[in-house]
């Protein structure tokens, strides 16, 4: 665990802040389980620009809880303490199906250009790697009004056999959660999905939105990343929203809030070890390059 520095924000804090900025006030949003960055992003949003957010905690379905700290397991009484009221699994998913879930947050081991996600399996014919599965992600990707996608593992890694394994892939081996277009090119509308699909993809290398065709488009990089780095770690070509901006960094008060919400720094477990030391200096910081 890295001790956070007072005068700098960490990559984790920057990601939390950036995810939080995708959350509108007055909507119902659900953070799912197993995603501390998103859990914290919702709490940051609710305590800053979105006080009327209906914050539904993943796994417990608690509404507007005040956890004393962030636990590494989502279905823990830690996570629903102080809840204003409680839903159950049926009610949350019904709300989504009825178009009342304003925003959902999803990730995957594979993400393609249309925002399709795979959290189910690697290997198309034979099963090479069984992933944990998508939970309710498929249903919510279909039904939520808007989706924020994120991953803290955009950077390609060696697969140990000399090849690089990419997170942003040409094609998902399995579509757990649909994005804007199916493999055969059909659109969400063509498939009769009621939600509007992903509008943000936030990674530890940069921030994408989606263009009118439903394709990811690079919008922002971090102070220590650039377009070329993003491109080198992405299996497909993508449009760029010029000029690429630098991702806005959290004000000190937000960093302090995150540190008080997550004293165990659980959210850093979502980051790869080499990313945990990436820090940026304050909200109007200049880049400090790593790697």
């Amino acid at each position, binding site marked *: 665990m890295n001790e956070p520095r007072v005068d700098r924000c960490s990559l984790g804090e920057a990601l939390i802040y950036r995810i939080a900025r995708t959350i509108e006030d007055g909507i119902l949003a659900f953070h799912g*389980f*197993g*995603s*501390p960055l998103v859990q914290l992003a919702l709490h940051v949003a609710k305590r800053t620009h979105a006080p009327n957010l209906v914050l539904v905690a993943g*796994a*417990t*379905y608690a509404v507007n809880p005040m956890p*004393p*700290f962030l*636990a*590494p*397991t*989502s*279905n*823990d*009484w*830690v996570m*629903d303490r102080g809840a204003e009221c*409680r839903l*159950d*699994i*049926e009610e949350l*998913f019904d709300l*989504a*199906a009825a178009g009342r879930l304003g925003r959902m947050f999803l990730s995957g081991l594979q993400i393609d250009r249309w925002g399709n996600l795979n959290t*189910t*399996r690697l290997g198309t014919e034979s*099963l*090479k*790697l*069984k*992933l*944990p*599965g*998508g*939970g*309710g*992600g*498929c*249903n*919510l*990707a*279909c*039904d939520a009004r808007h989706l924020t996608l994120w991953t803290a593992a955009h950077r390609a890694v060696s697969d140990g056999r000399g090849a690089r394994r990419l997170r942003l892939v040409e094609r998902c081996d*399995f*579509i*757990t*959660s*649909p994005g804007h277009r199916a493999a055969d090119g*059909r659109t*969400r509308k063509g*498939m*009769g*999905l*009621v939600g509007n699909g992903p509008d943000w993809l936030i990674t530890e290398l940069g921030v994408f939105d989606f263009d009118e065709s439903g394709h990811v488009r690079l919008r922002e990089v971090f102070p220590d990343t650039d377009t070329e780095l993003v491109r080198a770690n992405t299996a497909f070509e993508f449009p760029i929203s010029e000029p690429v901006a630098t991702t806005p960094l959290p004000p000190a008060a937000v960093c302090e809030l995150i540190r008080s919400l997550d*004293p*165990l720094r*659980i959210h850093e*477990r*979502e980051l790869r070890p080499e990313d945990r030391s990436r820090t940026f200096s304050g909200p109007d910081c200049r880049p400090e390059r790593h790697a």
Partner: protein
Amino acid sequence: MNAAMYTQADKRTDLETLIGYIRPGDCLAIGGGLSSREPMAALRALIRAGTGDLELIGSAHGIDVDLLCGAGLVAASAESYVGFEQDFGMAPNYRRACEAGAVAVRDSCCYTLVQQLRAAIAGLPFMPIRSVKGSGFLDLHPEFKTLECPYTGDELILVPALRPDIAILHAQYGDAHGNLHIAGPPVADRLFARAAKKVIATVEQIVSTEELQRLGVTVPYFYVAAVAEVAYGAHPTACYPFYGYDRPHTAHYHTCASAGAGRFEDEYLHRFVHGCPDHAAYLAAIGGSATLERLASWKDGPDAWMKLYE
């Protein structure tokens, strides 16, 4: 259809008799979720009984499903998630069993499961759902059908009723009649109870029916065939307010499971399941009262509670 009603006055039994309600090949719904309120003592007894060839259904699970996979009792999994979140990551035994082909992969998704259970609960052959389209789940589930909606012309997915042969739940409190009180998130337990042909339950404490009424009945007795009092029956998952999640034990479990099938067998299954003739022996094996006191310390305040996760 025609599911039985369980109305006998006294349904109390012991853990081994309880587990006898599960038959080889059953479709089994396990209550609780992730690191909370899993019927772990019952699952360990099930492993000792060797009742296998099970089909598992559920939403978000972890060590419960992984343990059954590690013991070789699972023929198919239609869970939505099996893992250890950001805490320990993937579920090693589950993954190994799926990749080896020992467990048929029939992954589902939470709302799809809810709709299928609702069909069973309402005695309907199917429920409609919209939110599977565009995903790979349609290929995984050839039993799903499509319907052109006669009202809107939209294409809807129909998902067939899913009626588990048995739901196995762990609750904080029960009474002799079989009423259950679940404190905290019920996860899918109420859905499982209503959809299944029968419910069996372990509970931390059996109390009087009057006391249970005061607490509130989460699962009415007539769904429940048998109940056994098993204190610490969810360990190493949490069963608040009695005890929190045993993270060190779970870390040890995960290390053993990650080290391969053989080492899991030798270092975990032998020591904590087959090597423990009963639940009392298990509680001794996990460290006895020192461990149990540590897990109860969450009540001492946030600082003590936080220590459980370090």
